[in-house]
């Protein structure tokens, strides 16, 4: 009985001939993969990845790891959703997303979520290195969310904070706060970690007391 069901499951669906190759494949072996995105633009300092699911990108400030011989580590500083066709832009329908999914299902095939990450280091033989990687992440490599354990291992020291503060692309303080809220959670809001982080921050922005206190207040609450 079980055997018959298995055979039935493996039989290709009548529609598979019409599916794009990657979709037909995804239906089979790739389904259990856990990646959140795939790199589509890559440089030494930052990358852009396409989210696997629409609206399924990681959150602002989250840590990611990119599959490679020397896995690259980054933090998300921008998530955006847009039309996949340059000459077609979304227009307002006046319907809820639920209504649109039932009655205008093609819309969701024409949108794509992408995210941008700031590269902050890499893993060498499993050990975190807080230096930019020797080679950028490769296009089409898979992006994974870092586990709490990986975040804890990487944030064993705080040199990477300088990299965030030195970047000019984003509202730096906002990114810093978002990142630290993630790391604090990964450290299970440990008091030791909070104190160490506060000290590092005061070293980095000690000349601007108002800014420092604003950051610490917003991280800790």
């Amino acid at each position, binding site marked *: 009985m079980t055997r018959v069901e298995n055979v039935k499951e493996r039989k290709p669906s009548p529609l598979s001939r019409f599916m794009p190759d990657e979709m037909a494949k995804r239906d089979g072996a790739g389904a259990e993969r856990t990646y959140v995105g795939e790199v589509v633009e890559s440089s030494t300092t930052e990358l852009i990845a396409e989210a696997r699911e629409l609206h399924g990108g990681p959150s602002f400030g989250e840590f990611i790891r990119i599959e490679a011989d020397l896995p690259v580590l980054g933090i998300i500083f921008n998530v955006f959703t847009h039309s996949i066709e340059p000459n077609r832009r979304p227009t307002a329908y006046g319907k809820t997303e639920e209504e649109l999914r039932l009655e205008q*299902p093609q819309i969701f095939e024409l949108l794509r979520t992408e995210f941008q990450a700031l590269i902050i280091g890499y893993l060498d033989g499993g050990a975190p290195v807080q230096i930019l990687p020797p080679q950028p992440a490769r296009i089409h490599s898979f992006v994974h969310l870092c586990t709490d354990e990986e975040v804890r291992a990487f944030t064993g020291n705080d040199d990477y904070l300088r990299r965030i503060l030195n970047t000019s692309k984003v509202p730096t303080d906002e990114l810093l706060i978002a990142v630290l809220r993630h790391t604090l959670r990964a450290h299970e809001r440990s008091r030791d970690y909070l104190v160490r982080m506060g000290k590092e921050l005061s070293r980095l922005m000690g000349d601007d007391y108002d800014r420092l206190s604003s950051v610490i207040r917003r991280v800790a609450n």
Partner: protein
Amino acid sequence: MLDLYAVKTQIDDMVVDERRVQEDFRAKLELALAEYRRWEPEWQTLATKINKSRTSWLLPGMADGLGGGVERPERPAEISIAATDGSQIFPDRHEVSSCFLINIGYILLHYGTGEKPLMSSKPTLYYREEEIFEEWGGRRMFVNRDLVGFKRSLMEFTELADLALAAKAEGHPVVALSDGTLILWNLEGKPQDFKESYLQTTLEAMDSLRDARIPVAGYISQPGSQELINALKLGLCPLEVADCDRCPWQAENQLGFNEDEIGAIQDDLWRGHGLPCSPLEGLNDAVLVSHVLSPGQRTPLYLSTSKILNEYGSHRIYYFYLDVGAEIGRVEIPEWVATDPELLELVHACMCDQADKGQGYPVALAEAHERAVVRGADRDTFYRFLRDTFVKNNIQTSISTKSFKKRYVGI
């Protein structure tokens, strides 16, 4: 290079002519509407005249009269729409290879279930000797644009049938939409074996759709057809049974006057005043029907009398005009849809719904087009790809000097 200044003066002249045509047009339309109203209650008399007469133009077979609009039925909450469209890269003998490519776009949209739609395209490259040469009517010929066009339309239809059947096999209630006409009138005049082969493949696809009870409909946007106008023209003919070949007015004009007079009359004829049926010359059905229907409504069914349909067997094509709000569309359906009230209503409801969703044009067909389309830039990339691959594999090629000249024009 286009001399825009020279074009501009010609456009100015055109506008003057166009204005005169439009004034003339309004008078014609009023006459057509009056005639339509006149025949509405006694359409059977007109239908009889249609059956008896022999005209040089195509007349509609009247099935349920002229009449007003049929209201839009409600669409079932859960329904899937299948659609295909095709595009091609024509063979170009100035290029490295005389191959050609057909790209088919597939769309399967599921409504009311939230299920992920299928939107894809599949290209097929034809390059083998037996693919780029075909033998029809005892003549071996290079596959030209015309033949590629036929091949593409045939593929659009057979692939649509396969897609709809696969959807049905997965348990989806489905309606199949085809872009353009279901009447293969352009097979007329082709070699007999070519015509038979194309017809047979099309009708087999039709058979499979009928057996699975999947309604199929062809949608024609901005139809230029004039069958209803032609029926009204016949109505204007004072003869009880018209025979255009022996039209007495035509004969009188040709024979009864001297040369000067003929010149004057022919000019008059050209303006559409010469024959009893001429006052309606130049109108089309869509214009007439747009004044009869309100949004969502369709006309009664008409049977197409196109000659090719004599070979369609049980799939003879009926049509109706549909006011989708933004325009009047023409919807063509095979006999087994036309005579099955449930399927007919389903087609009517889905067509309106599709046009609503696509801001005036069926959304599934629009998306199928988007998937299928091969743009100029794609074509250039394709040929660059082809040349590079040929070179990499040490295959001797040459492109014509004409093609070379088009790309690099020296001064």
